């Protein structure tokens, strides 16, 4: 009994006061900055997921492994800014010299009825469990996305959005489509993590089927490997309520 009391007292109040404005540890690789004169060809050769090309750094493919930064710290740096989510695939490509990424990344708004209540249904389609654990962490005492009215629900019939994690294996394709069909409208698709957005490190595998993510309209992309809970919460709340 006393151990429980002591444990509870030491636990205190654990919620991060404002997840949207939280300060994350400096070591965290967040929004990348490419210098204007970066040698993209050399960087592209070292990237394990082909995220760097002539147009810049594709956040939808980036797994934030830091190889490019270690190769050429002058050209690539990752700021400790978790506001990575964007509402279109084109916005995820960071051009050399681009400075304004988080300011313009999410401009869509959900209809008014979702301002204070948003129900998510997660389908893990061959995710490695890191993205799933981070999504589960969003409802824990620290991040507590329930305070914004966001919750993960048990049935697709209760949900407003499907949040997909994982690159979509061929064995999960059918289940994914039937879950999507069971969600009543208006419904939205959210892709969380590099694997969901582009196949990530599994993009070249022949056991992956990308048609679901490429054919349907996607409302929100949350980059990361895995997507950090603060990124997820920031993306969702910006969709629901704006800045």
């Amino acid at each position: 009994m006393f151990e429980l009391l002591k444990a509870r007292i030491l636990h205190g109040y654990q919620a991060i006061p404002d997840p949207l404005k939280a300060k994350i540890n400096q070591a965290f690789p967040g929004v990348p900055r490419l210098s204007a004169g970066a040698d993209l060809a050399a960087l592209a050769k070292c990237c394990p997921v082909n995220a760097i090309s002539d147009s810049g750094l594709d956040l939808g493919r980036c797994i934030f492994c830091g190889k490019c930064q270690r190769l050429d710290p002058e050209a690539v740096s990752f700021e400790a800014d978790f506001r990575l989510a964007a509402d279109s695939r084109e916005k995820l490509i960071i051009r050399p010299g681009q400075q304004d990424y988080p300011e313009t990344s999410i401009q869509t708004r959900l209809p008014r009825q979702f301002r204070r209540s948003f129900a998510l249904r997660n389908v893990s389609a061959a995710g490695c469990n890191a993205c799933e654990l981070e999504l589960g962490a969003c409802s824990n005492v620290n991040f507590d996305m329930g305070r914004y009215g966001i919750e993960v629900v048990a049935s697709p019939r209760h949900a407003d959005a499907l949040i997909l994690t994982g690159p979509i294996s061929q064995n999960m394709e059918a289940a994914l489509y039937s879950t999507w069909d069971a969600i009543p409208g208006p419904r939205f698709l959210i892709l969380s993590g590099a694997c969901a957005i582009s196949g990530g490190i599994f993009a070249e595998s022949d056991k992956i089927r990308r048609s679901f993510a490429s054919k349907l309209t996607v409302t929100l992309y949350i980059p990361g490997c895995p997507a950090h809970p603060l990124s997820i919460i920031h993306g969702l709340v910006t969709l629901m309520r704006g800045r």
Partner: protein
Amino acid sequence: MIPIVMIIFLPLLLPGIINRSKAIMAGRKGQSIFQPYYHFAKLLGKDEVVSSTAGFITRIAPLIALAATLVAALFIPMGWQKSVLGFGGDFVLVLYLLALAKGIMVLAAMDSGSSFEGMGASRELSFTAFLEPAFMLILSALIYNGSLQSLASIISWHSINFHEVWSLISALLIASALYIMLLVEAARVPFDDPNTHLELTMIHEVMILDYSGFSLALIHYTAALKMLIYCSLISNLLIPGSFFWAPLIYFVLLFCQLVSIGLVESLMARFRMNRNLELVLVPVSISLLVMAALIARTLGGW
């Protein structure tokens, strides 16, 4: 007039208060107290997806359950001594209306053809088989020595009276039996976990897994209204005599009950499914005890 307003607007506040007390126990901010209202409003704007194997029962069940529970709520005293409607022996009607609401939802659960919902329905009914006799026994015991009266007058007749030891004991016993019934009917810990994501362990939530949109909103409201009914019965039982400040005490007692539900949910683990049945027998034994004691009192006359 006021009770009707309360019946319409108050129920959705109850889950909000319970969730807030759980959040404070957990050390986090948690949802707003009005979150069930926002949730309800959002659901009104959603489409409905109905499974192709479901029949007409699935469509009409939420409406019938809502109607039955609403009418039952009109017979429940809420803070004032009188309820909106009342006649001698109306507690039988209340019991049957609540049973109708539950029965139609169970039928709809089996109509959906999913094996989980069938399991949830069978678990639900196994508890009901014990709780309804307990409820009936308690209320019959309370009218044993009087004429057939309305539910509101029975409760106010037997509500706590600090001058008489006997009424103190009987009111507390009946309130605790009703509290356990509240926990079972509202699907709270230790009988069921309302936030569980494990479809194999659900009792109540599994029956609503296939509903969406407007029907789902009605179901949430009906469940909250049922919670309000039981909480009102307990509160009214514990309001001493014909106190002038009865409504105020009613709200205080209501609040205390909700916070206590939140506390129990945070501090206790859920029972194993086969142990649930053991605990459901407690209201039955309390009701038999109260019935026997009231009979003895009338015959023995102390």
